[in-house]
């Protein structure tokens, strides 16, 4: 993601390609809003923003196919199985069935879980499935809103690996999270959002 945009109450930030940026801040600061803005889910009322050099307000169609987002909700179909969900989300982005399979395995929702309907999964298993869908889509900009919530220790490790690999293959990651130790150790940069203002925090060691 290249470009700068004034965010939420006047601050400006920009993110370079290949970075993992952690958004932290108190409840209600505006992290979710910021991510939804980048995803084009919230309109921009004041100021401008651009992603990949395209304007957020007017050129969404060029941005979106390259963006993948995991919000508070998982965006899964309850009456489809894990494998069917990943296959649907993967193949609408043009993924082959081998890629879909790889994503399912990577997030540990293979084996018995593969053919379980999503309504019957536990919260963490749903979260893993949603992550698998995201992996299968191979986005260039990843927007993750509290991806750690609900994941167990193993799941968090898997998430780290997935994000590292994504960044290695050229993706950019924006994570909003309250798991500061976890996400902080992974991030290249930490940005604090407070009351709609954005400012840099010293990089983690």
């Amino acid at each position, binding site marked *: 993601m290249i470009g700068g945009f004034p965010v939420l109450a006047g601050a400006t930030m920009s993110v370079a390609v290949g970075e993992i940026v952690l958004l932290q801040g108190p409840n209600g600061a505006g992290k979710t809003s910021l991510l939804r803005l980048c*995803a*084009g*889910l919230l309109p921009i009322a004041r100021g401008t923003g651009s992603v990949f050099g395209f304007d957020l307000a007017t050129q*969404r*169609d060029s*941005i*979106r*196919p*390259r*963006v*993948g*987002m995991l*919000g*508070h*909700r*998982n*965006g*899964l*179909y*309850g*009456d*489809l199985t894990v494998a*069917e969900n990943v296959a*649907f*989300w993967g*193949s*609408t*982005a*043009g993924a082959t069935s081998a890629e879909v399979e790889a994503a399912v395995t990577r997030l540990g929702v293979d084996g018995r879980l593969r053919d379980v*309907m999503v309504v019957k999964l536990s919260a963490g298993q749903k979260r893993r499935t949603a992550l698998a869908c995201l992996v299968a*889509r191979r986005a260039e900009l990843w*927007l993750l809103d509290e991806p750690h919530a609900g994941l167990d220790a193993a799941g968090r490790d898997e998430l780290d690996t997935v994000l590292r690999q994504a960044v290695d293959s050229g993706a950019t990651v924006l994570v909003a999270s309250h798991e500061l130790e976890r996400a902080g150790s992974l991030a290249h940069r930490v940005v604090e959002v407070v009351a709609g203002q954005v400012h840099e925090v010293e990089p983690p060691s």
Partner: protein
Amino acid sequence: MSRWRIARLVAGKDLRIERRSRVLTNQVLPFAGVTMVMFAFALDASNVLERVAPGLIWLATLFSMLVLVQRSFAIESDDGALDALRVAGVDPVAIYWGKSIALAVQLAALEIVLLIAAVLLYGAEVPLGGIVLLATTLVTATCGLACVGTLYGGLTAGFTGRETLLPLLVLPVVAPVLIGATRAVESALGTDGVALSEGWPWIGLLAVFAVAFGAGGALAFGPLIEEAT
């Protein structure tokens, strides 16, 4: 990835979910039946029922369509899948086509059952021309209804009070389909001595409606779901 392939994926997903949950056969069909019976109750006072039977079929279809549309978009908005589709930049025209096709398939299944029941019940002798007319009515009306339903379903998905907003928006719009399809079926079945030839002009209306909403919907669907919160 071609638009058409995505539309097929979307339609396939919707139909698979329907096959799993069996809402159409187990609930919508009996619902249509119950709707017709309730009309019969309310109208009992006047022996007008026989004459309005073709109308009843389409009324029941309309009300059933409303619940089918609601269900079709409940699937999408329950867990934020519609948002995810938007963010992922999945072609909205393809989503529109896909969901319309799935809806049309379900509607057609419903109508076939209702129409066959009606033909049997009223013991109408349907001439060959009548059958052709019936089939054509069914196809054109279904396309029109599916297009309108999907369009407004997308608009109302995720709003409070969508249970009421949807009928409020859809019912007035589909009034022409109700009238046209009713007249066409009347003349196919020869109710009230209406001639077969009188039915075909109504098909024209239905076809125009379907084409207009098919095209308009494909254009408007993207912007509409874009603005849904």
